[in-house]
């Protein structure tokens, strides 16, 4: 059980890392892109926009505690 937990933790840290919301956001954006493609919309623009937003939000969350201390 300890080995399984360590194994899961290793892969979680390796793939997901510090901010799980980024992984969830990327998955959601890709799902939306795929869905739009299925209904005939060539939504190549959706993911780049999502990436910019996800990065900005993740950075904002990372520095917020620092700013609150200042």
């Amino acid at each position, binding site marked *: 059980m300890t080995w399984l937990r360590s194994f899961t933790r290793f892969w979680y840290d*390796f*793939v997901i890392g510090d901010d799980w919301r980024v992984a969830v956001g990327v998955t959601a954006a890709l799902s939306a*892109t795929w869905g739009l*493609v299925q209904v005939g919309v060539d*939504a190549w623009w959706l993911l780049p926009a999502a*990436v910019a937003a996800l990065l900005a939000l993740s950075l904002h969350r990372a520095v917020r505690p*620092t*700013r609150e201390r200042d």
Partner: protein
Amino acid sequence: MSDLVLLLTVFLACTVEAVEALTIVLAAGTSRHWGSALQGTVAALLALAATVAALGPAIGLIPLGTLRLVVGALLLVFGLQWLRKAILRASGHKALHDETTAYTKQVAAAGKAQAGGRGQVRDWYAFTLASKGVFLEGLEVAFIVVTFGNNQRDLPLAAIGAAAAVLAVTGVGFAVRAPLARVPENTMKFAVGVMLTSFGTFWSVEGTGAHWPGSDATLLALIPAVALLATGCTVLLRRGSSPLPPSTSTGGIPMEGTS
């Protein structure tokens, strides 16, 4: 993507991983026992070879669209982790990754650990420290090679880029017998984060069935756009709050997945 861009991207990304792996091996070897550290390195490389040999060919059987979607998504998440940390470091919100400090701490920790061997390994601590470091960083190298190589249908070229990076870093590292603190690692990580994020975005969008305007040439706009976004974020964060003192260092073991 041109062959040169593929080669340079893989080379740069793998150089970062090789520097981190080498730091760990040098710390284990110089402070404990070179033989055990090298045994650990060889053991990790064999385990890696077996992993890649088992999984590499299987990846080739997956349809290209599905491969690009899954691998692109992974690469994008991976790249965003790198980019996020690189921006936080560049803006002063996260301490710079200093290989010299990491090396010193590794040596100190290794010196405190109890000596003792198992079987043919004289110093188990040196063996496990080196093997864990090499396996983890090597896994990232393998991941980069397999994903980039399969997506571009040029696995040999990606492997050459990775091998060149590992050989170059190993050669330099053992020539100077010191951690590669002079390598501008944070700058490299910033660049690698930009590349991984750009390629991850490009491939995963193609995997969904959407078509980039301009096909492969889109990368020529996507990479500078991501670089510009990252640079802009860095500038904004620098203005936003008081940064950490420049001498601050993470000092931890450089074995986390993407740092």
